[in-house]
């Protein structure tokens, strides 16, 4: 009656026979409440009954018991990255029914770099059996079960076993206390109903699972979804405290597929050192739903690059180079870079008379700094594009620690301009300073700094050029970035080479000191803005981290200043400064963790998803999509001067335009992909979709005016001619 496991590997002759022999004699030894064992060197399995005799009409528990050899594991319902769940097929007497397996909470079992979900050690898989009322005392019932399971160490072996329980029917059930208590212990440890509904929201590449009601004391929290097409199983699941409970950040599966708004899973965690688990029902936001045919078939508006405005048109290499050069030139006028350039120009003015050669050298070094930094950034962006992953222009500002570093730098520059401290030879003054070796490095580094602070800005022409750059072979992409760098460096370079231009600058004097001080305030303003960006990216933790970083930087600068030239004390001070820097750096990395923000920031404007665009288009609504980021100054300027204007709002309302916002403040590959589809590598990007199914979007320029938006809205609504008298 009992069978042996079917071996997956052929080379187990002796063991196979031994198992067979044991299986043949086992029935005689087996007590009624436990079936004969099915054994392999990896798993010994039995069917355990909580009854020695069953009673008509009752429900009782049986369990498939797997004693798994050390190092091996079997699988949960969702096996994770590989594997297959244990299955039981029942053959029961008429009227008898068996429930599904009541699954214990799984463990995450890493098989570097993958993760499986399953069980080690001894496992009981309980099933509830219902005895029909019609069963007669004195009869016997025979429960037959065929179970299949996959047992893996590093290698995997499919096994199966047939189990039989032959139980008498009595007027009153005879409980096998031992079996009952083992099964009861398993049942008691099953994931408990959570008592709250979890919410799953999209965060682009990632998913955010909010678990309201989960205690803040919970640690080692992990979510196991039943569906194997929801998350990347091996990805870490960082937890952040939320308004109520905890929020888990999950990596979206590359095979992402979600057909029902409600899904289930198990959350395991530790509380007070004890392992706990909850069975959760998760409600997914509608935007996450994919069409029944699969994730990739989700309606994604087809992409055609319109020849309409110059931006976004398909470019030739020469056009891209020209665009990049022009874009770089215009970038000089953007608010991000202006203060840095003024400081450079002031330096030139001071040097102008005596050191014309120095000025030229400085100009060249500035160019060098600009080119090298652009090439580093471009190398990263183009390199990733070549590897098939899009990170986009401005990617570095998607990292809260870097945004915070920039805020610290801005604050320090500001105080330095005010004269609060001097970095460099204290008495020598700027001129002498610049003439020193350090001055050369300084000129180079000013170029680097100018590029770094320029990245939040995008100038006209730049979007299309950078977009072109990332879609071309690396060499061509880098050429485009080189053109951009040359355009960007040209004004300062020209100034350094043109004595006439330099003479236009007034003589150095008191006005320079005052102007220098005045420039401190744009720096502080920039720092404030960066702290705000950090708060959008990483919440209150980001603000705290930024302010702590500023404090630490201020302390270090002060410490280095007061101990200058004091020998041994200086060494100690340097050590202390390094310690503070390390501590603050660590704190920033700990606290400035990106949080899910896109939805929260969107307000009454809906968050963008390709599906939403397609849906709204199908309803006949024109759709305006605003691709933006908190760190993109050009975007914020457009929002202020055009998007938030009353006449635009009125026109949008009148024409029933749906506004969607794609917030790229934090990394989001869906948005990056959508940008790439329009030939862009960064924000801002403004798209107007006509209210017709599958109609192509119009790409608006990077600097918006209210008129432009209203006209585009009319075009999208198909009403451009009628209301010309507006």
């Amino acid at each position: 009656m009992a069978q042996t496991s079917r071996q997956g590997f052929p080379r187990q002759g002796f063991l196979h026979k031994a198992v067979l022999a044991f299986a043949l004699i086992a029935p005689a030894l087996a007590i009624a409440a436990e079936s004969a064992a099915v054994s392999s060197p990896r798993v010994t399995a039995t069917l355990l009954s909580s009854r020695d005799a069953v009673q008509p009409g009752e429900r009782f528990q049986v369990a498939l018991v797997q004693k798994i050899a050390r190092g091996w594991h079997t699988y949960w319902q969702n096996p994770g990255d590989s594997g297959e769940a244990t299955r039981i097929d029942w053959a029961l007497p008429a009227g008898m029914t068996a429930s599904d397996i009541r699954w214990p909470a799984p463990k995450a079992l890493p098989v570097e770099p993958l993760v499986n979900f399953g069980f080690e050690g001894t496992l009981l898989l309980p099933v509830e059996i219902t005895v029909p009322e019609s069963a007669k005392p004195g009869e016997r019932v025979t429960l037959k079960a065929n179970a299949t399971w996959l047992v893996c160490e590093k290698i995997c072996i499919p096994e199966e076993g047939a189990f039989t329980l032959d139980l008498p029917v009595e007027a009153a059930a005879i409980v096998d206390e031992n079996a009952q208590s083992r099964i009861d212990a398993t049942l008691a440890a099953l994931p408990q109903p959570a008592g709250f509904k979890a919410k799953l929201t999209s965060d682009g590449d990632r998913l955010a699972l909010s678990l309201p009601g989960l205690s803040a004391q919970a640690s080692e929290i992990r979510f196991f979804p039943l569906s194997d097409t929801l998350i990347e199983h091996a990805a870490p699941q960082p937890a952040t405290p939320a308004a109520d409970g905890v929020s888990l950040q999950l990596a979206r599966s590359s095979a992402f597929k979600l057909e029902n708004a409600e899904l289930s899973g198990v959350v395991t965690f530790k509380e007070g050192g004890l392992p706990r688990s909850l069975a959760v029902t998760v409600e997914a936001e509608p935007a996450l739903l994919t069409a029944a045919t699969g994730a990739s078939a989700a309606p994604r508006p087809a992409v055609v690059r319109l020849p309409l405005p110059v931006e976004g048109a398909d470019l030739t290499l020469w056009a891209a180079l020209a665009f990049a050069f022009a874009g770089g030139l215009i970038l000089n006028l953007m608010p991000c870079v202006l203060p840095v350039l003024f400081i450079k120009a002031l330096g030139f003015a001071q040097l102008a008379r005596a050191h014309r050669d120095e000025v030229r050298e400085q100009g060249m070094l500035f160019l060098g700094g600009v080119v090298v930094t652009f090439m580093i950034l471009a190398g990263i962006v183009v390199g990733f594009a070549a590897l098939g992953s899009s990170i986009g222009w401005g990617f570095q500002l998607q990292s809260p620690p870097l945004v915070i570093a920039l805020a610290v730098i801005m604050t320090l520059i500001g105080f330095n301009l005010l004269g609060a401290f001097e970095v460099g030879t204290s008495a020598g003054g700027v001129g002498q300073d610049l003439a020193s070796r350090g001055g050369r490095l300084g000129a180079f580094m000013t170029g680097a700094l100018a590029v770094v602070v320029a990245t939040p800005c995008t100038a006209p022409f730049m979007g299309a050029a950078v977009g072109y750059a990332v879609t071309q072979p690396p060499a061509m992409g880098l050429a485009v970035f080189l053109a951009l760098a040359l355009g960007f460096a040209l004004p300062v370079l020209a100034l350094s080479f043109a004595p006439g231009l330099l003479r236009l600058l007034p003589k150095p004097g008191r006005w320079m000191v005052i102007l220098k001080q005045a420039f401190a305030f744009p720096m502080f303003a920039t720092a404030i803005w960066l702290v705000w960006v950090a708060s959008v990216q990483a919440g209150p933790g980001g603000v705290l981290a930024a302010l702590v970083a500023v404090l630490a930087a201020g302390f270090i600068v002060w410490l280095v200043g007061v101990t200058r030239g004091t020998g041994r004390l200086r060494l100690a001070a340097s050590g202390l400064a390094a310690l503070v820097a390390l501590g603050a750096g660590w704190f920033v990395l700990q606290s400035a963790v990106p949080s899910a923000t896109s939805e929260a920031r969107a307000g009454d404007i809906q968050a963008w998803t390709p599906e939403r665009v397609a849906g709204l288009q199908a309803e006949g609504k024109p759709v305006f999509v605003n691709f933006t980021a908190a760190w993109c100054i050009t975007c914020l300027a457009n929002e202020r001067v055009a998007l938030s204007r009353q006449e635009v709002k009125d026109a949008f309302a009148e024409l029933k335009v749906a506004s969607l916002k794609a917030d790229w403040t934090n990394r989001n590959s869906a948005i990056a992909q959508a940008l790439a589809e329009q030939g862009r590598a960064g924000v801002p990007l403004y798209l107007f979709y006509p209210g017709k199914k599958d109609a192509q979007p119009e790409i608006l320029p990077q600097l918006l005016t209210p008129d432009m938006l209203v006209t585009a809205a009319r075009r999208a609504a198909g009403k451009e001619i009628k209301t010309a008298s507006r």
Partner: protein
Amino acid sequence: MKASLTRQSFIAGLALAGLSLSAGSVLAQGAAKIGQPAPAFQAVDADGKTRNLSEFAGKTVILEWTNADCPYVRKHYNSATMQTLQKDMAKEGIVWLSVVSSPVGEQGYVEGSAAKELTAKRDAAPAAVLLDPNSKVARAYGATTTPHMYIVDPKGTLAYMGAIDDKPSSNPASLNGAKSYVRQAVAELKAGKPISEAATKSYGCAVKYAPLS
């Protein structure tokens, strides 16, 4: 070096340090994505020849992660389903590359000669068997199981990634009535249609990875 650090260099140095920091965190990401260029790779085949993805530009390429002893792989080979698929694809002018990513000392590791023997013994018809004992190709594609299938279109774009069919089981009976995601994707690719199921959950044994050195 008496205080030769100028204001600008001090500041810009900080900025660059931050920059490299953020670039590092970006590096942690980046596996194969549908609709994106398929990750480039270089690997030695069973004949000892170095092969690149780029040499197949203009052709459709199918990558099959395999491990001869894995029960799921055996299901497809013992029934000749896999070989038939390979031959049918070859007829269509499609390049079929079987990839073995087990490192030395791990189950599934083969040398070139053993790989060729296996191909002959099983009457398999891959264009080449790629040996990936450092698991570099596996990491680039994020392969998790054997089998795990990837289809690269003639433009070098990743068109399909995931399971070989819709029956995640090692039981040979499951082949009856299974829907081949690979055949479906290739047919749609040929017809110029969008791939209806471009990313599916692969199933099988875990790919044995070499530790990151």
